[in-house]
């Protein structure tokens, strides 16, 4: 090898070292990572706010004659049923998706799905119907990825109407699956 070649290699290596230590390249790498961090921070803030909002939405509720308190949230929405039916209406799928998203996000939550009926028909048959409505709703949430261990069910039949009226408007409101929070 000639002296010239050594010098050439030396310069190439030097150039390479210079290129590696190039401050411009470092700048280019750092720029997106700062953005990501900020986005993550914003996301975390958003999450914290959402969590705070959700926690604020939980209203403690005492049930007469029953020990302990449970919570209700306007963010866990009711779904409704047709007379003497327990199928989930296609239009209510979106509501259950929102409820499921909350339950998957706050995995320390334990909820109970209440099955309710309107006042028509006998006490006992309505208890059977309410049992079905609650369990169908639970199954739907589980199919969306909610842990079955976090969801219990109860049937109230026609014993706890939301609207005390004796007309179709009241009945339609009363045929529902309602979610309460039993532990948070």
């Amino acid at each position, binding site marked *: 090898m000639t002296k010239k070649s050594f010098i050439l290699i030396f310069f190439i290596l030097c150039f390479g070292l210079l290129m590696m230590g190039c401050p411009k390249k470092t700048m280019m790498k750092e720029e997106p990572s700062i953005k990501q961090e900020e986005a993550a921070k914003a996301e975390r803030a958003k999450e914290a706010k959402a969590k705070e909002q959700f926690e604020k939405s939980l209203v403690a509720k005492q049930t*007469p*004659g029953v020990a302990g308190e449970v919570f209700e949230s306007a963010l866990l929405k009711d779904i409704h049923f047709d007379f003497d039916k327990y199928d989930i209406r296609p239009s209510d799928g979106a509501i259950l998706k929102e409820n499921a998203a909350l339950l998957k996000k706050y995995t320390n939550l334990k909820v109970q799905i209440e099955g309710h009926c309107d006042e028509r028909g006998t006490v006992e048959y309505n*208890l059977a119907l309410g049992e079905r409505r609650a369990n169908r709703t639970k199954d739907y949430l589980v199919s969306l990825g909610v842990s079955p261990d976090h969801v219990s069910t*109860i049937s109230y039949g026609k014993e706890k109407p939301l609207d005390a009226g004796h007309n179709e408007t009241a009945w339609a409101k009363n045929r529902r699956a309602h979610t309460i929070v039993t532990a948070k």
Partner: protein
Amino acid sequence: MKRYLLLFLFVIFVVTPSAEARIYLDINAPTFVQIPIILAKWKSADKTSSPFSEKVYEILKNDLTLSGFFKVIDAQHLPPPLREKEGIPDMSSLQEWAPGGGEILLAGETLVESNGLDFKLTFHLYDLVDQKHLVGKQYEGPLQTVRSAVHRMADEVVLQITGERGVQNTKIAYTVRQGESKEIYIADFDGANVKRLTQNQSINLSPAWAPDGKKIAFTSYLRRNPDLYLIGVDGKNLQLFSRYPGLNVSPSWSPDGKKIALMMGMEGKSDIYLIDTNGGNPKKLTKGYGNEASPTWSPDGERIAFVSDRSGSPQIYIMARDGSNARRLTFEGSYNTKPSWSPKGDRIAFCARAGGHYDISTIGTDGSGLRSLTSSSGNNESPCWSPDGRYIAFSSTRTGASKIYIMNDNGLNQRGLTSSKGGEGSPAWSRRFD
């Protein structure tokens, strides 16, 4: 409880009824004409206790009216000479009662003993058509048991006229809504002695008398689950005995008192199960995907009627007590629920929807002879039979708020049980208490 001091109540036969007892009223006929019975003014043998004899008279008059078998002719509505006639008549004077318009005459007298604590009642029953003495009996006991003694007297009169004792000494348990809670109450057959059995502010449902008449099984949400409890008829000894996850509702005691049929939801839907009276050994009787509800035992304990929507709408079915041989009983209408098996064994009462209303019907256990007993006056629900199978109690909204009613099993003589404000439901009839 003082009411049960009846053990000290003695019944003395004054005259034994004639051997060839005649049935005046065939209550098994689909319709019958009420027997006109004259209730002569009662005499106070001790002179000082006319309010007492008036009280006895009123309880007796009410009992006979409620039985549905009589057209009661009150002494006040008799022609003047008969109006004031009181006490026990002699046989030779029976024809004097002819203008009263009755076929049967009931006369009696009361005595409050000089100790002021005990009573003596004597009554005699006469057939005015054949001019014949039918029966006479005397009842003694402490004053606080008088209501029960008069009920037994009325039962005896019903026995003489229909060939079968009445149910005046029975009780009816039922639920009463109070705001968000529902409590269980008990009343006598005539609506007297209304007592609250539960007082826990929770939702309490479907009371069912144990065959011995000492306990009542019911569902309560006290633990935020519909569990089954037992309670003494004195309101004491509350006992949780079936608390499987999901439903533990609609209990029905087997006639021998050893098993309870009920609705349970262990598999995510309601099925009929049998459990022991301590809640153990749950055994599932129904199969398939339907909602199964409201079990009721046949009086021989061999079969169970229940509701199932396996055909697409709720209908009444009958199965053997082991769950085999289920067959559909009702085919008319699209909503038949809450069966109740008659203690006589031949018919099943249930709640049927027709034209947007709910009415009480009965049907033979072979599916024949469907009869509607209430006719679209409000909603009529939750039928249950009297222990003699001659009456049906049910709830009705005919006057607005839901109240308990009683009728003869042919639908005649419908009357309210109590004078409460309403919110009543789920009547359950006890055995006879004497």
